């Protein structure tokens, strides 16, 4: 495990920073540190917020940040081995029908590929949920095929429907709630990514792996019904590594 640098971040937070790059290996170290520090710091810690190559630790105001900073440094130095991670891989069904995909036609024309080819390119990779941000439950995903990279729309939509799956630059993402947005929308998932009624309220969390699965409009409707009645079982498996 690579060692992060530690910086004080305001009155009662510490920022851990790894090599400044977006990569799976660095992110795995972020996840390892998160697991370790959550266990060791316990109640002193209010929250941990991981990102691509950094992580914020927010402490109770009573905690002496300088003291705990030294403890963390020593703790992480002992952790030189790269311990195996247990990660959930979650299947996200997506309907790529034009009714749910207002930008798919324009995108395939610009890329000069068929809709089927786009679907294959989008459903093949296993994506990494680097972290959640921007909107409650919004996943920053890594792993989009470079053939699908495309700039965001010059004029954002006033309303993008919850569940919409989009592409912006080198990223793909899912809107957890209705929101204005400038991503190119290529499909929609019937799953609810964010609900305050649920615990945890977000379907995804940092470190999850994710794969999209193409479904028909009929399947979309049937999953919507099942999600509503609580009968839908999310497809997931545990991956070690």
């Amino acid at each position, binding site marked *: 495990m690579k060692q992060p640098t530690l910086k004080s971040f305001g009155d009662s937070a510490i920022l851990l920073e790894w090599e400044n790059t977006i990569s799976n290996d660095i992110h795995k170290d972020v996840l390892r540190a998160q697991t370790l520090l959550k266990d060791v710091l316990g109640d002193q810690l209010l929250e941990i917020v991981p990102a691509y190559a950094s992580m914020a630790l927010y402490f109770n105001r009573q905690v002496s940040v300088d003291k705990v900073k030294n403890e963390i440094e020593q703790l992480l130095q002992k952790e030189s081995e790269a311990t195996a991670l247990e990660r959930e891989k979650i299947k996200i069904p997506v309907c790529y029908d034009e009714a749910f995909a207002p930008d798919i036609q324009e995108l395939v024309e610009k890329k000069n590929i068929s809709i089927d080819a786009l679907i294959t390119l989008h459903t093949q990779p296993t994506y990494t949920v680097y972290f959640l*941000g921007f909107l409650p439950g919004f996943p920053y995903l890594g792993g989009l095929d470079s053939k699908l990279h495309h700039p965001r729309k010059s004029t954002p939509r006033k309303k993008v429907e919850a569940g919409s799956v989009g592409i912006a630059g080198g990223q793909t993402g899912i809107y957890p709630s209705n929101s204005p947005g400038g991503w190119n929308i290529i499909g929609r998932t019937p799953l609810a990514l964010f609900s305050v009624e649920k615990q945890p309220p977000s379907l995804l969390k940092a470190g999850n792996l994710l794969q999209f699965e193409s479904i028909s409009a009929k399947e979309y409707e049937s999953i919507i019904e099942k999600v509503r009645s609580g009968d839908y079982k999310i497809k997931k498996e545990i991956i070690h590594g």
Partner: protein
Amino acid sequence: MVEVIHPGMYTTIQDLGRFGYRNLGIPLCGAMDRMSATLANRILNNSDEDAIMEITLMGPKLRFQEDAIIAIVGADLHPKVNDKSVEMNTMVSISKGGLLSFGNASVGTRAYIAVAGGWQTSLVLGSRSMYNGVTEASALDKGDLLALKEQSKNVHAKQSSLQLETSHFNTAKIKVNEGPEWKQLSTSLQQKILKGNYTVSPQSNRMAYRLEGVAGIKGSEIITSPVQPGTVQLTPSGDCIVLMRDAQTTGGYSRILQLSEQAICELAQKRGGATVQLVLT
């Protein structure tokens, strides 16, 4: 119950914030000026975590449908009960049918109305702080009915009136610490940032305060990384943005400075047009 006759300019229910969910992208939220909010609760012997009402520049009109004991702390919005001025920073009794109204803020921007036992709006993910997409409403609206706690009537409030110093409202010096990217700036740029006289943009809100009017300062984009209330972002186009309580949990601009908790509260009392300096401590 208390009926909202008019919501005022921007009135919400807040507490100390929604902790434990920032890793899911849920903003912390909570009272902008936490010091004033806490003081209002303490006057009534409430717990610091009890929900208070945050009112902004132009206060609401509230009809109390039952007897209640309240305390108002923060900006001076000239509170009146049944058209008679009432004191701030101390407990105030309101009888059933009483109308609480306000003038315009003369000092400060945000005031807090505490009720004995706290406002009983719905608790969502451990907090009553209103936020779009998390709580049902993002602000109070005309016709809303707000529940009070039963024991409101028999409160043994602290008789001592508590008050913040006037500097809390009129200081122009906003205390900051170095942010994660501060050391990456050139010394001359650091000097420029700290010598600048900034004007608070009228577009400032619960999410962020924009500081304008200092030319020739520029930040850069960073790989998206955590931000928190009080983080000062400097964008490549020279916008200086101080994130406040409703800020996103991560951001992609250089985090040059970080306000102290007290400084966040003091900045929250500024309005568009105010002049401030950033003072490194």
